[in-house]
């Protein structure tokens, strides 16, 4: 049993990808089968990820050498405590896919269902691969699978506007991918290796050079674009708001985290090299704090609920980046737990918003007044998500805010703690408007006044996720306990 983890690990990536290739085949007879099949694949992937996490918990981190070639000579997949997030990834997809079943009825013609579900699984597979790979070039290729499927998913339902949003996303995304490839080339030229751990060791052994610095800087910039850190966020709001809601949930909750995981890889690469991370950390702190405030500030002016959620993603990415920049144990713990918690909360919010839009046909606050009277459960889920995203207890969002704020004081950067705590409250101004409109006003639109609750296949995912937001607020210690040893190791490697 001891080798179970390494043997199964490659299938975590291969399963959804092979599943994606099968979706159009399954859907030939009846497009509806695509949804069920995709759900089955997502569930199987979740189960596989759970087995791996159980292995991790009992035996510690493990690696798989693909093709049987030992580390620097082949591609290595590495499953450590940070990679445990893959389980959340797969699980959240398992909620988004059943939500899509009925959602697609109104949004997509049947012949495009199969490509849609295939893209979802490709996205999942790419994200899983990106999260577990220990190889630099493989990092690039998996990132391309994620990016390419994301561009298409943005444009899948809309016409011109969506295509334009997707193209903006694509152009910036492609440049950032190119920067990653360039950096991989530089690092290969410097070290002759593509294995992440090996490159790090060899960089440390060599003289610190401008080339290594350039490589790390390109990687950092590229990943910050992917993470949509202010002011590199320009592509995000349109893309996330225009995409169909299940896609918005995936993009906003999960795909932006590619940038964060990538940033983690930059830290791991830099460990031990003698390259000072101070300038990077300062930039991350300043930009992170700015992003928190600006994301919140820009959200206030939105009337479209999905656009507002998109801006709140920018704000929340600011949290995570600030936490990474602070580089103190508590801040890092908070940041990495927020990678997961924000995914949960944002998926909840976008799915709830999607259910409301699907049932009423409206998407702005002024139109959606009084919707809670007709859709109390969905609106309640939305309210829980809103409270959670602002970081108020007793919800999942609070745990991370607490840790990052604590980390700010731990790092003697109390000012950032203030920015974090009050920047987040700023956005609540907006959410209060939303809650007021949903709960305490009378409907102005007949469609809203006569709306009915979403079908169960849409409602159940939303309700379960909202409950999870509350449960993880109280049991916040579980993800924290999981991430803590990994953060300690990382900081030790970084010499802190």
């Amino acid at each position, binding site marked *: 049993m001891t080798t179970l983890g390494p043997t199964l690990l490659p299938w975590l990536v291969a399963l959804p990808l092979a599943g*994606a290739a099968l979706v159009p085949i399954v859907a030939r007879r009846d497009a509806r089968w695509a949804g069920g099949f995709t759900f089955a694949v997502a569930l199987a992937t979740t189960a596989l990820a759970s087995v791996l996490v159980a292995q991790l918990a009992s035996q510690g981190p493990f690696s*798989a050498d*693909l093709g*049987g070639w030992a580390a620097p000579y082949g591609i290595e997949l590495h499953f450590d405590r940070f990679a445990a997030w893959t389980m959340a990834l797969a699980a959240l997809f398992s909620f988004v896919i059943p939500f899509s079943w009925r959602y697609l009825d109104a949004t997509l013609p049947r012949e495009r269902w199969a490509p849609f579900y295939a893209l979802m699984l490709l996205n999942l597979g790419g994200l899983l691969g990106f999260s577990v790979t220990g190889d630099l070039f*493989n990092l690039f*290729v998996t990132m391309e*699978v994620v990016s390419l499927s994301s561009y*298409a998913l943005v444009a899948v339902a809309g016409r011109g506007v969506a*295509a334009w949003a997707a193209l903006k996303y694509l152009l910036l995304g492609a440049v950032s991918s190119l920067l990653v490839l360039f950096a991989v080339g530089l690092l290969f030229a410097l070290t002759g290796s593509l294995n992440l751990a090996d490159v790090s060791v060899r960089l440390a052994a060599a003289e610190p050079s401008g080339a290594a610095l350039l*490589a790390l800087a390109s990687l950092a910039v590229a990943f910050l674009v992917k993470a949509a850190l202010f002011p590199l966020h320009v592509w995000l709001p349109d893309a996330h708001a225009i995409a169909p809601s299940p896609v918005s949930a995936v993009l906003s909750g999960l795909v932006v985290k590619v940038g964060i995981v990538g940033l983690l890889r930059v830290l791991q690469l830099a460990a031990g090299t003698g390259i000072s991370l101070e300038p990077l950390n300062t930039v991350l702190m300043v930009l992170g704090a700015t992003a928190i405030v600006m994301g919140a500030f820009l959200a206030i002016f939105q009337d479209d609920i999905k656009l507002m959620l998109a801006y709140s993603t920018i704000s929340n990415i600011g949290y995570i980046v600030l936490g990474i920049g602070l580089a103190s144990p508590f801040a890092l713990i908070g940041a990495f737990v927020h990678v997961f918690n924000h995914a949960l909360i944002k998926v909840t919010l976008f799915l709830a918003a999607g259910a409301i839009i699907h049932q009423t046909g409206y998407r702005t606050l002024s139109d959606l007044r009084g919707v809670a009277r007709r859709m109390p459960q969905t609106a309640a889920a939305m309210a829980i998500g809103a409270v959670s995203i602002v970081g108020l207890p007793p919800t999942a969002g609070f745990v991370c805010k607490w840790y990052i704020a604590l980390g700010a004081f731990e790092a003697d950067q109390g000012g950032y703690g203030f920015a974090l705590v009050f920047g987040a409250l700023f956005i609540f101004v907006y959410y209060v408007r939303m809650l007021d409109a949903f709960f305490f006003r009378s409907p102005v639109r007949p469609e809203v006044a006569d709306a009915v609750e979403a079908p169960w296949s849409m409602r159940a995912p939303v309700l379960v996720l909202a409950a999870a937001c509350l449960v993880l607020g109280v049991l916040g210690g579980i993800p924290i306990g999981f991430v803590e040893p990994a953060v300690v190791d990382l900081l030790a490697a970084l010499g802190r």
Partner: protein
Amino acid sequence: MRTFALALVLVVAATMVIGIAGLPPHGDPDGPVHTHVGARYLEQGVAETGLRNLVTAVLLVYRGFDTFLEVVVIFTALVAVLALPSATRQPPPPRGEGAAASRREADDAVPVSPVVFLVVRLLAPFIAVFALASLYRGHVTPGGGFQSAAIIGAMMIALGLVFGREHAARLVPHGAKAWLQALGPLVFAAVAFVGWRLTGAFLGFPADEAAYALREAMVVVLEVAIAVGGAVILAQLFMALDAPS
């Protein structure tokens, strides 16, 4: 915009010059590129993989997982284009006599000179043979799955341009299309599974002498899958982009 672009370009150029200046000189046989992982591939690659073209060895054997993801990427591109609204505007191919005229009109909007017609027609088989040769010799000489895919794909475009899309589309049997376009990822996954059962490693290739033929077969199957799958995907991409909108 221009000023901004120029300023950005200058900043990027300066940064790159400073960064790249720190690289070891290229072409140095003692540089890290040639002494670390690459050296092992060069020394033992032929023995370990049985492939004489070491680029193919790296692509399929040492770093097969990258290539798996590569075929996934191009499959993603196809699915992405098919998922876009314009792709579905294409009406289902009309059947029967009455539809033929309108079809020809739509397909052959651009009249093609007889010379081009003849050349393409004559060349097509040769292109196909060249592609197959490139594929077959891929593990000895330059060439391989993707190159063949591109060549077959290019042939299909040429045929499509000359005979109309309808004609070219018939080259890919309709019922098998879904299977063929997914051939790359699926065969990769299958070979990975076989390798896993045989060697215990995902995408592992049996290394012992006795299994030489099996190893060879696995490589050929992969190459064929990449070539055929890639060609079908490329052809479909062309047709999707060529679809009237």
